[in-house]
């Protein structure tokens, strides 16, 4: 096994993921509509009710639309990460995964390739969303559109790795509703996506602490700073650590001799 083999596998997996994304037009539309509904309707309702005082990276007062934009980018990646995990379950049920897993390449590499492919799709979704937001007059400094790319890669990988980890636990497609209820919603609402930490602290110290340690919060903050051309070291290290943790656990989870696959193998 040498580099070309690895690259060919990476290309194969990425192409398949992209093709699947392009062919499922409904998926693309719903991925775009979901954050836009939040931006156009939810944020409009709160436009002036939440007086947001300037906290870094913001240097002056902003409208609520501008505040939740990084949070909605996070939401796109969170849903995409979970959707990838859903597709893993589907692949397993349909038997496609067997083809993938019998490849002579190491399993960790196959998982990382799958993760990268999913993240690539989520980045495309994010830029489509940013374009619509720009037309709606929700804009960030120009350098932010480029600066956010590495942040999107890191946060997309982290959320995708979480999805992979979860997919190793989910037995059937129907269980995805559980993921919505117990993972996506709590992660999204208990984060800095919709309200700054100090706002949460005003109502509950416990919620504040939980949101502070929520890896999704740190991913959102990483994106938020990057959109304004700034680098948030703490958020990057936190997100990178979460990625390492989730990915290692997912690799173990997908290891036939150790992880969850073995338990499911008998079925």
């Amino acid at each position: 096994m040498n580099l070309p083999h690895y690259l060919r596998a990476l290309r194969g997996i990425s192409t398949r993921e992209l093709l699947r994304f392009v062919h499922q037009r409904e998926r693309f539309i719903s991925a775009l509509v979901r954050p836009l509904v939040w931006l156009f309707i939810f944020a409009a309702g709160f436009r002036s009710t939440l007086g947001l005082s300037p906290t870094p990276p913001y240097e002056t007062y902003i409208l609520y639309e501008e505040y939740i934009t990084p949070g909605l980018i996070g939401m796109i990646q969170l849903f995409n990460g979970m959707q990838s995990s859903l597709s893993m379950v589907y692949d397993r049920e349909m038997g496609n995964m067997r083809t993938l897993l019998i490849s002579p390449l190491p399993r960790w590499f196959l998982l990382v390739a799958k993760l990268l492919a999913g993240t690539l799709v989520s980045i495309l979704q994010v830029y489509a969303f940013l374009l619509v937001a720009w037309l709606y007059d929700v804009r960030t400094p120009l350098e932010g559109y480029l600066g956010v790319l590495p942040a999107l890669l890191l946060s997309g990988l982290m959320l995708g790795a979480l999805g992979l980890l979860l997919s190793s636990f989910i037995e059937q497609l129907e269980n995805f509703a559980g993921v919505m209820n117990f993972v996506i919603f709590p992660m999204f609402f208990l984060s800095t996506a919709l309200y700054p930490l100090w706002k949460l602290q005003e109502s509950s110290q416990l919620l504040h602490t939980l949101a502070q340690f929520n890896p999704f919060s740190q991913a959102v903050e990483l994106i938020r700073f990057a959109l304004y051309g700034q680098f948030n070291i703490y958020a990057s290290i936190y997100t990178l650590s979460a990625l390492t943790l989730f990915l290692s656990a997912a690799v173990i989870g997908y290891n036939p001799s150790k992880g969850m696959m073995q338990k499911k193998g008998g079925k």
Partner: protein
Amino acid sequence: MENHLLLVLMAILLTCSNSFADTLYITLEKDNALAVVDGNTGKLIKTVKIGKRPRGIVLSKDQKQLYIAASDDNTILIIDTASLKPVAKLPSDKDPETFAIDPSGEFLYVSNEDDNLVTVIDIAKRKALKQIPVGVEPEGIAVSPDGQWVVSTSETTNMVHWIDRAKLEIVDNTLVDPRPRSAVFTADGKQLWVSSEIAGNVSVFDVASKQLIKKISFKIPAVTQEKIQPVGMRIDKTRRYAYVALGPANRVAVIDAEKLEVIDYFLVGQRVWNIEFSSDEKRLYTANGVSNDVSFIDLENHKVVKSVPVGQYPWGLAVKP
């Protein structure tokens, strides 16, 4: 060649830094103090205690002195801009809030809200020359650029009183919408703009005929009309754009001063009261009374750049180049 390029770059850098080399002086109504802010970096340089409840603030012609109305001390202080120490006091009578200075720098006119008077002060002699009775609760005051007119707006009578500068007497009155707060002449002296706090609009008058040209109203999505309370105004020298602070609406309106139409709104801090241009008119500074900060607006790029905490209840500002 490289040297030339370097020189050009340095020249550009120098002009850039020069254009923002303003010093801002901000009266802090609750702190009884004056805040000094670097217009370039937005950093608070220092805060000095001056007098009780400082509000109106104007820079002298020679830029060496600041006139500051210390409302609860019933005086107008003259502060040296270098030492930031009071050098003299002017007899303004009770509760001075807003005041205006002659283009010649000779007289200063103060609204005495409680006594329904405008006090005329000879700055050099530091003496009150005359008190002119005006409508109930005089507030806004302005002197025309040619020095011919002094106008005073009375908040309860809802009038603009036209005072002839030569006679120091009211020669005419014009009705305006409820609670006129601020009056500003355009640089060419042809128009007078008056903001009405309760009516939520700005009336533009032709100075020659004293007739209303147009009323400008404001509408901001998701902000109730009651919150739109126009106060401080600034019109650029070429009369291209005008800016109006909208109080609790937390916005500064941008007006096309030729068409007299609102173009846009800038989101700034809470209860934006008074505003001032930078010396090159490329920036606008706003005093935000409730959020205790000053917002910097980049007028060229049409963007609020930053908001800097300065102290409690910033009321008015003066800019020294």
